[in-house]
């Protein structure tokens, strides 16, 4: 194993990631071009005079050729200028920064709570394969994975408002410029929803890969060597069962980053997801483009991190045959 080998792989993956983002930006730009309706008309309303519409189009560079518009956008991005919102006219950066913070908070707290629970539950179920613990956990996980997140979210709202009215807010409104942590109560229901959404995937992957590992020849060999149960589980089995789970976790976190759209919308939580929904509603093209690109960047980063972890845990991937 050479450190330079890993560094080279990391560099290659980063370059590929940048290429991926470039392609995503092209696709996103092309897609927004195809959106029906004229932005200026959408902003000014149908009663606007043609002169005003023309003036706005000019201000928004909408008269440039599409390629030039794309170039202006990318050039801006490279300078850290995400452009201005068409609707508010304010720089998108300030809007995104707040939303990004809110969403990250939600995702990170969800991950910190649910991933350890799911991994440990998966381990427990695998060790007690086909026994009561396993059957109970697996049934719960299966039921949860069959429910879409908005159903879970709405169900939680109903349950909490009926069982304990006024304890938890049904809508998680956050004042602009304030952190959700100042009013932690607003986070409870969205977090619970996301935790329940995330749990089954990670749990099932952990359980499945751990069962495979526990049935492998080398675990049988370790048992026949008289290795203690504790060492068997932690030293022999867990490192082999983790790589598939890490991939599942990365996908889940990536899903969280994008998939919170629905949950944020259900709870009216001012994050990236809710931002995208409202940007689409108002035809705010620069915002749609920037939001989408940010989500894509999160996907790319998470995948690179997961792959590096997998390589680190799998000697075969990081050593060559001598």
């Amino acid at each position, binding site marked *: 194993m050479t450190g330079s080998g890993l560094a080279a792989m990391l560099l290659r993956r980063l370059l590929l990631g940048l290429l991926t983002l470039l392609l995503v930006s092209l696709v996103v730009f092309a897609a927004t071009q195809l959106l029906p309706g004229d932005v200026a008309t959408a902003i000014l309303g149908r009663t606007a005079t043609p002169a005003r519409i023309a003036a706005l189009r000019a201000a928004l560079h909408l008269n440039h050729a599409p390629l030039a518009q794309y170039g202006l956008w990318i050039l801006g991005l490279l300078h850290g200028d995400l452009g201005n919102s068409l609707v508010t006219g304010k720089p998108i950066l300030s809007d995104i920064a707040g939303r990004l913070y809110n969403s990250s908070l939600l995702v990170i707290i969800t991950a910190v709570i649910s991933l350890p629970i799911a991994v440990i539950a998966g381990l427990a179920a695998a060790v007690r394969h086909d026994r009561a613990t396993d059957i109970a956990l697996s049934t719960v996980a299966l039921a949860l994975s069959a429910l879409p997140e908005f159903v879970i979210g709405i169900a939680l709202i109903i349950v909490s408002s009926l069982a304990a009215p006024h304890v938890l807010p049904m809508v998680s409104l956050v004042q602009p410029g304030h952190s959700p942590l100042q009013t932690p109560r607003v986070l409870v229901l969205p977090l619970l929803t996301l935790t329940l959404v995330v749990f089954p995937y990670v749990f099932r992957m952990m359980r499945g890969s751990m069962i495979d590992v526990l049935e*492998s020849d*080398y675990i*049988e060999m370790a048992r*026949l060597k008289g290795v203690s149960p504790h060492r068997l589980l932690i030293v022999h089995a867990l490192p*082999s069962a983790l790589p598939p789970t890490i991939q599942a976790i990365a996908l889940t976190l990536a899903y969280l980053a994008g998939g919170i759209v629905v949950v944020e919308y259900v709870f009216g939580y001012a994050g990236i997801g809710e931002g995208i929904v409202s940007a689409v509603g108002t035809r705010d093209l620069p915002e749609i483009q920037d939001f989408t690109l940010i989500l894509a960047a999160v996907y790319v980063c998470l995948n690179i991190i997961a792959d590096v972890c997998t390589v680190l845990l799998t000697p*075969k991937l990081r*050593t060559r045959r001598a």
Partner: protein
Amino acid sequence: MTMSDVNSTVQAHAGIVVEDLQVVTAQGAAPIVRGISFAVTPGSILGLVGESGSGKTTAGLALLAHARPGLKIAAGRVSIGGVSMLNLSARELRTMRGREITYVPQDPATALHPGLRLRTQLAECLRNPADATDERLHRLLEDVGLPDPARILSAFPHELSGGQQQRIAIAMAFAPQPQAILMDEPTTALDVTTQTRVLHLVRAMAQQHRTAIVYVSHDLAVVAALADQVAVMYAGEIVEAGTAAQVLERRLHPYTGALLRAVPDPDQALVLKGLSGHAPDPAHRPPGCAFAARCDLAEDACRLAPPADLVAEPGHVVRCRRMGQTAISRPQAMAQPILSQPQAAPLLTLSGLGAWHGRQVLHDIAIDIAGGRCTAVVGESGSGKTTLARCIAGLHAHWTGDIRLNGAPLRPSAGQRSREQLRRIQYVFQNPYASLNPRQTIGQSLLVAGRHLRGSKAISRSEILAALASVGLPHRAADAFPGQLSGGQRQRAAIARGLICQPDLLVCDEITSALDVSIQATIVELLLRLQQQRGLSMLFVAHNIGLVRSIAQDIIVLQAGRIVESGPTQVVLSAPKAKETARLMQDAPRFAAGLQVAPARHIAPMVV
């Protein structure tokens, strides 16, 4: 068990004692292994012999009080060094496993942990892992003849060769200086030369450390060379047991006799006889003798009641009611090795052939392969046998030189060759479990091959059935999926897939190495018959010299990618000119001469 009990039995029962062992399926309680008893004294080796499914591995694992998922040990007694294994607590069991009894797995490639360095894995095997000094670990590796211990200790399993992995597994088994070791076919994956080295090692270490060893194997030649005692298993029972000489020489049970008629001999061409049919399913064993249905000597009484153990002579027990009443036929030498005359022009001409797998693996191969004959390619692993076969079939395209089929040059890769050329050379792969499409019936597999290579002409169902019949498969096999067939049947189907293309040359790449010896013999019978009936030419890649002797008329000996000797098989093997040929002959396991490490000693009386 109290301590005084332990002490009193330790002396009486050092080594391994198994009494009336029964292992059943966890659900249906169908007996997989029943009524097994044997004893192995310190320093001696018991060969537990049987075909796939005979229960030999299941019986062996019970020595460690271990049953594979779906099985459970239902009854019996297993004692290792006087400690009864089957009623220990989990904690007590852990102190026995890996200390007093260790295990050498069949396939170290999967049984060594892929993610732990060998230092960690080896250190775990010591009685006290804290003792794992470099010096200690290095000595363990040196004991099994592994060079450069420092490098190996810091390596992961995948960085070693199969032979090195196998030695590591053996070093791990001997590391705690156990009283007993279970070895489950530990040399199956090795070429003969490495195998001989490993067997010598096992023998020497058993005597040096006074270890009792149970050696599970389907390879009778290996067992003959290694074991002091032999127990032959069939359908979950021991049908014959005694000293190696008693069982292998006198062979009083018809099944032992049948097995031994299937074993090839490197020193002479034998008529190999396969064993037709298959062992009864554990859930539906007949009331009488389990072997009766396949036994030439069975009479009605055999089918009615289970046979009892008869003592042929002290220590030699046979579970056959007709023991001594009938003669078990012996292997026959081939009357006159089949020698069809070579055709005037060779079928295949190779000249200046060099092939590359990164580095050059074949050098300047020049040879004519005669039509209508079977030409064997032998050599140790890594000598380039399979690469040669794959170049000829166009499966390995990275070669230079000249290969001509009836004088017409062949392009390097199959994709560049004409359909006619592809049709004329057919390939049968080593592993029948992987070479047939699991989602297609055998009939569909044959149809695809035939249709594709014989042009648009439709292949009729009767032609498919005829191809299957010619390899001894019933009509219903056409509608079976590979998963529904046994290993031997799958390999027959793979051969039929080649035959339906009406090839001139059938390239057989180690096609029997994944099969039991009795199945191997039936495949050899089949190929010889096809050769005689159809004048089929064959290129037979193998590492088993005895097998080659019984099937091939011509032989090519490869060493490090070069032909070191070639000619008629019987001539080459009887009077080897090349050192490599002589070495392969010398290393080939055979019955006549056991390993000359030490005479068989410490033979315990059988517990019956």
